[in-house]
């Protein structure tokens, strides 16, 4: 079997986001970037399935500017076999990203596409489901456990009420949650080896898909700030404030 795993380069989750004064977006210059966290889980699970012998090949793909190659190299360093960089310099909405991935799926013919459940920049949570719909494949979102069988995959998903178990036929799209596994760190020798692994480059414009964004970003602003609160001296004061001042008890 073969897995295509999609990774996105985003602002590192530990970075405090700063909104630009002109309302055009957030500051990204000289900001630390890394792999979207649940995409790391998607890579880890793909590599684990390869190590188990059930999967033969793991191909990592990223769509974006040249620096997206760093994100692909990171996936290669933890065990992916090959990289595909689809070059695109502008922001593409999940709908366009799904169209690009569909083209790559048609070419690479994977049995499964793994990706993170959501990117922590635009927080859309759409790409996996859209790709599945375009391919007319089943999907498993918010995946926290994967049991790969011969022609299907049994998935435990995290839902609001608890956990849900489903079985979807292959080929399928699997979007990964953070509790799926513990992503490993790449060792230095593997980082060196990853530099020699193949990386295919494709220009998004050459794929013949409509990438026009349909959503116009009018402005980006800081959320309203909470006014500074007070420190109380002890528990008795806290309870008294909650009861008499905030009136929530």
């Amino acid at each position, binding site marked *: 079997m073969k897995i295509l795993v999609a990774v996105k380069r985003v602002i590192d989750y*530990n970075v405090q986001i700063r909104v630009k004064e002109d309302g055009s977006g*957030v500051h990204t210059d000289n900001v630390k970037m890394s792999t979207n966290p649940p995409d790391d889980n998607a890579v880890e699970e793909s590599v684990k399935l390869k190590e188990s012998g059930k999967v033969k090949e793991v191909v990592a793909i990223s769509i974006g500017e040249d620096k997206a190659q760093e994100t692909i190299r990171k996936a290669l360093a933890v065990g992916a076999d090959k990289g595909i960089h689809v070059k695109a310099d502008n922001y593409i909405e*999940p709908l366009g990203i799904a169209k690009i991935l569909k083209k790559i799926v048609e070419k690479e013919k994977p049995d499964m596409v793994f990706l993170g459940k959501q990117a922590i920049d635009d927080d859309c949570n759409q790409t996996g489901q859209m790709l599945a719909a375009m391919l007319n*494949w089943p999907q498993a979102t918010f995946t926290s456990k994967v049991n790969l069988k011969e022609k299907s995959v049994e998935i435990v998903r995290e839902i609001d009420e608890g956990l849900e178990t489903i079985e979807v036929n292959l080929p399928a799209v699997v979007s990964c949650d953070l509790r799926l596994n513990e992503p490993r760190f790449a060792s230095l020798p593997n980082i060196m080896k990853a530099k020699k692994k193949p990386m295919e480059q494709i220009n998004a414009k050459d794929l013949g898909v409509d990438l026009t964004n*349909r959503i116009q970003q*009018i402005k*980006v*602003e800081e959320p309203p700030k909470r006014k500074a609160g007070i420190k109380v001296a002890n528990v008795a004061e806290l309870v008294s404030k909650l009861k008499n001042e905030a009136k929530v008890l």
Partner: protein
Amino acid sequence: MSVLLIAEHDNSKLKPFTLNAITAASKIDSDVHVLVAGANCENVTKEVASVPLVKKVLWCDSPNYQNYLPENLAPLVTKTAEKYDHIVASANTFGKNFMPRVAAALDISQVSDIIKVSSPDTFIRPIYAGNAFATVKSNDKKKCVTIRPTSFDPAEKTGGSAQVEKIEAVDVPNSSKFIKREETKSERPELGTARIVVSGGRGLESGENFKLITDIADKLNAAVGASRAAVDAGYISNDHQVGQTGKVVVPDLYIAVGISGAIQHLAGMKESKIIVAINKDGEAPIFSVADYGLEADLFKALPEFLAELNKLNTIQK
């Protein structure tokens, strides 16, 4: 210019967040129609029909929709959407699962997780885990929108009498199978809708110590929350997680205990009306969003807190 809203339910009862989504839908257009797709779900259609903001209920009953498998549900929604300008659902694990499939089938760029309707085509949605708010305008002819339920008040439940129209099921691909659902049973209120939430973090140091949190929660009739750190450390199950990767809660009172206040946790609770932080590290970022901060050792403070609460007799059940 009607809005089609997809109801979330368990085939016998409507899930409460659908009421919040109805309010949001009515801000897009007053002609709100609700699709109830399920198996033997007539009771749900009655519940929806009695919501005054709902103008019409579309009822599709088939075993194929019993477990809301997105492969089955999305084609029905896509077909039903023909007559509508907006297709709307809650941005929870229900709506997030199927709505992008509908959007892709209709070649629409979905607007996810909105917190405000500015006009029928312009919405405000949080990005970067709520660290920025984006105002976005959809230029698609039809719009697929998911709604953050806690940002809208629930609609009135009774007084309406909308017409219920039965609609035909559509073919399903038979590519997915539901096996089981393990719902976390709790005597306490649901995290997403509770009036008070008491959350614990890594400061609790163990799963056993979470009893200090649950004792307070039981006294206050509150839901129990947790930070991602506490969940990752195995102190408590993930369905208690509050934050960017867990649930977003907006209670009247949020009590954060032993939680430092990582960006990802703040994203899930900072819209709460009153925030209390109890932490022994006076520099912890949680204090920057807290209305009342208590710099104290939680192992000393929580038993005292419980004792003080026991002295009050005004706790609302």
